[in-house]
């Protein structure tokens, strides 16, 4: 049986088709999910894609977080469903309190699009199992509000529990605290990542194919399970 990974489209989602392509290239079946549906259609995992849901008005992810689909998703994520939030998806996961902290305006106040070097800090989550601990990868990064913030206690807790899953190398592109590019929840099934692995899945259109690892990781995890 093929593994089915849902990709949610919110009004203003942009990288939803890219996330579907990445899921497909990784060998799973992408399933389009609609923000207005309460139903996750029985998928084995969900990607919340990048974009500007609701125009990023109010705060990034703040309006999308109240979509009907999120009700279902929050419940299932708490029960262990693998969920990856990329960029806007990460922001939505923080707004939903599935992940701690928040994402704020880049410290230099500009939108930035660049090929970003990262180090994988935790290769034990549902979405990073195919990487080696400490592996360095390059994937595109593009955001205007990607600065990860949380209070010191939360940051220390994330570090202590190994919940920082990826860190920026060479350049901190947005002023994220402790160079944090991505984090996970305690159980390791919910991961938020600011850079865009779905844009690094084909040599033709991406800087590398390093991004595929996130999508193959969840596949392997689900097949093994």
């Amino acid at each position, binding site marked *: 049986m093929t593994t089915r990974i849902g990709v949610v489209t919110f009004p203003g989602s942009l990288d939803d088709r890219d996330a579907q392509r990445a899921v497909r290239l990784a060998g799973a079946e992408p399933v389009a999910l609609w923000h207005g549906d309460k139903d996750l259609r029985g998928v084995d995992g969900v990607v919340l894609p990048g974009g500007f849901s*609701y*125009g990023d008005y109010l705060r990034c992810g703040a309006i999308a977080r109240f979509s009907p689909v999120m009700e279902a998703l929050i419940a299932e994520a708490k029960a262990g469903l693998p969920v990856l939030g990329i960029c806007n998806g990460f922001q939505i996961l923080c707004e939903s309190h599935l992940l701690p902290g928040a994402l704020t305006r880049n410290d230099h106040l500009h939108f930035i699009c660049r090929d970003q070097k990262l180090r994988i800090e935790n290769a034990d989550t549902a979405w990073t199992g195919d990487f080696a601990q400490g592996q360095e990868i390059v994937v595109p990064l593009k955001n205007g509000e990607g600065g990860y913030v949380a209070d010191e206690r939360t940051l220390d807790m994330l570090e202590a529990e190994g919940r920082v899953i990826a860190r920026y190398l060479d350049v901190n592109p947005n002023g994220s605290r402790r160079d944090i590019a991505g984090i996970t929840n305690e159980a390791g099934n919910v991961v938020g990542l600011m850079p865009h692995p779905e844009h690094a899945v084909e040599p033709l259109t991406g800087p590398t194919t390093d991004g595929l690892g996130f999508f193959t990781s969840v596949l392997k995890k689900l097949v093994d399970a």
Partner: protein
Amino acid sequence: MARVVVDVMLKPEILDPQGQAVQRALPRLGFAGISDVRQGKRFELEVEGPVDDAALARIREAAETFLANTVIEDFTVRVEDQ
């Protein structure tokens, strides 16, 4: 030290997509009875020294030329009691 607050709002006739998005979301979240929402910016300036008329006039000038884009925005300046 005194605090001066500059509120900057889009002029009433200018489209406010952010405010509209918030207004449309409110009923969905169960908050009815809000007929309009406008979203603007609030600047809190900590002023060294006394906030006399001269200082306020300077801040008003800064608001006019810099904090607000008067092509599309209005602003108000006031001293906040702390």
